[in-house]
């Protein structure tokens, strides 16, 4: 008798026996999208180095992925990832972390590495809240929402993370929701096949914290809402800002061929050592 083994199980670290995710968490959908992309491109875990910060999303690669993984301090995974990429330019360096980690405490590293267009993949799981610490407001929390640190409602405008990263100069930026598992996988595959700073924002459900705070309910209800509210970027272009209120614009926003940092460093070193091109 042989047990049925999930085809992606080979990517999971053997010492990991259980998940730390809450029931209904979107982490599993994103983790699977990453692993499917690796599988469909016939890559292996040894082609990657994963880096994550602090928060629920950061626990996707650490410890689940059976690969080289650096689980770092809060907000800094992209800065650590830059150093890893400089040391191992032939590896695909991938950051998986959350909106609080990457855009609040780590916002500076996000925009500067987008500006550098350094070859790495950043998957940002945006659940609009601090899940691990118990439902505090994030820079992505919608205006007016009552959270544990904004009991009378938030009074700050949220970031549009993808727009921020586009403005900072990233060469590939896409946004999907956990409802768009196939599209998400396709965008991750594109990111894995190109050179440059590739940023993928995933709107993801946290039914335990965000769901309770907003009254948007269960995981299924939240994903149904994502489906209803999502509009493809091509369609969104036809609408005014007012008409787009409350919508989630999804799709691949930017894909451009601009100078990439690892390659520019290679050229700089040639100049420094007096070699001809």
């Amino acid at each position, binding site marked *: 008798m042989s047990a049925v083994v999930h085809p992606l199980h080979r990517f999971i670290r053997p010492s990991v026996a259980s998940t730390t995710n809450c029931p209904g968490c979107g982490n599993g959908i994103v983790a699977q999208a990453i692993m499917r992309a690796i599988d469909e491109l016939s890559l292996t875990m040894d082609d990657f180095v994963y880096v994550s910060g602090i928060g629920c999303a950061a626990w996707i690669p650490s*410890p689940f992925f059976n690969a*080289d993984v*650096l689980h*770092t301090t809060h907000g800094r995974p992209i800065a650590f990832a*830059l*150093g890893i990429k*400089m*040391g191992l330019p032939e590896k695909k360096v991938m950051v998986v972390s959350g909106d609080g980690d990457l855009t609040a405490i780590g916002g500076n590293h996000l925009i*500067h590495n987008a500006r550098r267009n350094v070859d790495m993949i950043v998957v940002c799981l945006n659940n609009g809240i601090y899940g691990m610490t118990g439902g505090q407001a994030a820079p992505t929390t919608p205006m007016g929402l009552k959270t544990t640190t904004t009991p009378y409602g938030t009074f700050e405008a949220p970031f549009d993370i993808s727009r921020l990263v586009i403005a900072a100069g990233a060469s590939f930026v896409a946004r999907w929701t956990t409802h768009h598992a196939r599209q998400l996988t396709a965008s991750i595959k594109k990111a894995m096949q190109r050179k440059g700073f590739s940023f993928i924002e995933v709107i993801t459900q946290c039914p335990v914290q965000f769901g309770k705070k907003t009254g948007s309910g269960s995981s299924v209800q939240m994903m149904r809402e994502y489906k209803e509210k999502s509009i493809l970027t091509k369609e969104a272009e036809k609408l005014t800002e007012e008409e787009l209120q409350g919508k989630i614009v999804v799709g691949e926003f930017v894909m451009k061929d601009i100078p990439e940092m690892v390659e520019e460093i290679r050229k700089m070193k040639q100049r420094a050592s007096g070699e001809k091109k």
Partner: protein
Amino acid sequence: MSNPRVRPGRYFMMGNMACADGAIAAGCEFAAGYPITPATEIANRLAERLPQVGGLFLQMEDEISSIAAIIGASWAGKKVMTATSGPGISLMLENIGFALGVETPCVIVNVQRGGPTTGMPTAGVPGDMVQVKRGSHGDYEIIALCPASPQEMFDHTILAFNLAEKFRSPVFILADAFIGHMREEVVIPSPDQIEIAYRKLPEPGSDPQKIRGFLDENVAPMPVFGRGFKAHVTSSCHDEYGKRNLSDVSALDHFVRSLCNKILNHKEEIIRVEKNYDGAEVVLVSYGAVSRAAAMAALRAKEEGLAVGTFRLITAWPFPNEEIEKMSKSARKVIVLENNLGQLFPYIKAAADCHAEVSFMPPRVIGEIHDPEAILKKIREVLP
């Protein structure tokens, strides 16, 4: 074959330049930093020379990312460093703790300046002597060296790289604006006279499940990235295999103690002091730039027929308490000289107080090296 990393010869060289040249001689491959007075010349020199030998200096968006990037590159298998001053160290402290927690070889140069806060950037004040040991949160041990000349900026930087590699630990150079900006003769030896150490690695092809890459008091092999070791590296409390454990305090106890013991059990190999106190009744204890004034004062005292010696801390951390206690047994009076209001004094006093009378001599003005004449006056005061 000439080695482009080492340019042997006798130079009239600034301390910060000697530090950068020492780093390159030691095999530094990657450095990251952020401009700050009085350390910037190190970054400038590294930015010029590292790409010539296949390395790289990156100017980062801040000191937080500078230390993060060098730790990342160290895990990618490179020899790494950063150089900054006090305000930069303050920003780096969280990730210095990270480097300790996941046992990352790296060299951190602190060219100290007048603090607190933004203070006086061009003043040479060793005001961060305890910060390196106690600044990051939690219990830990660290290695820190105190150069007293441009020559030592070269020599100690090489030593710092070797200690970092041997003990898989951040190693500090605690210079200050005096030493960093001082110009003096620096002798750079030929490459074959320079000892170079490399970190231990797991055997190639090791079963990733069986690599005990952490928490060995005798230094575990480092499962660097990119070689199929599938290393799980987390600064959260972990076991020898890198597996996270956030529920069992005995795991935390093991985590903290083995990291500390890795340094403390090897104090003899790490600690360096300069002793010149045979037959001395009064011993001047100092480090860094002030030790030059102490040496001058001791020389003049001897010329006057006074039994005065010196004791210089080359290693500030781990703290050389045994060596200081031993010194105190032969001395009757110990005068501690620091160009601050007494940062290491309590530690020195604790080690020497049993056997000798210990006093502190602050600088006349903070940021000004002690006048040897004033030290002589103090010696005459304490002598019976």
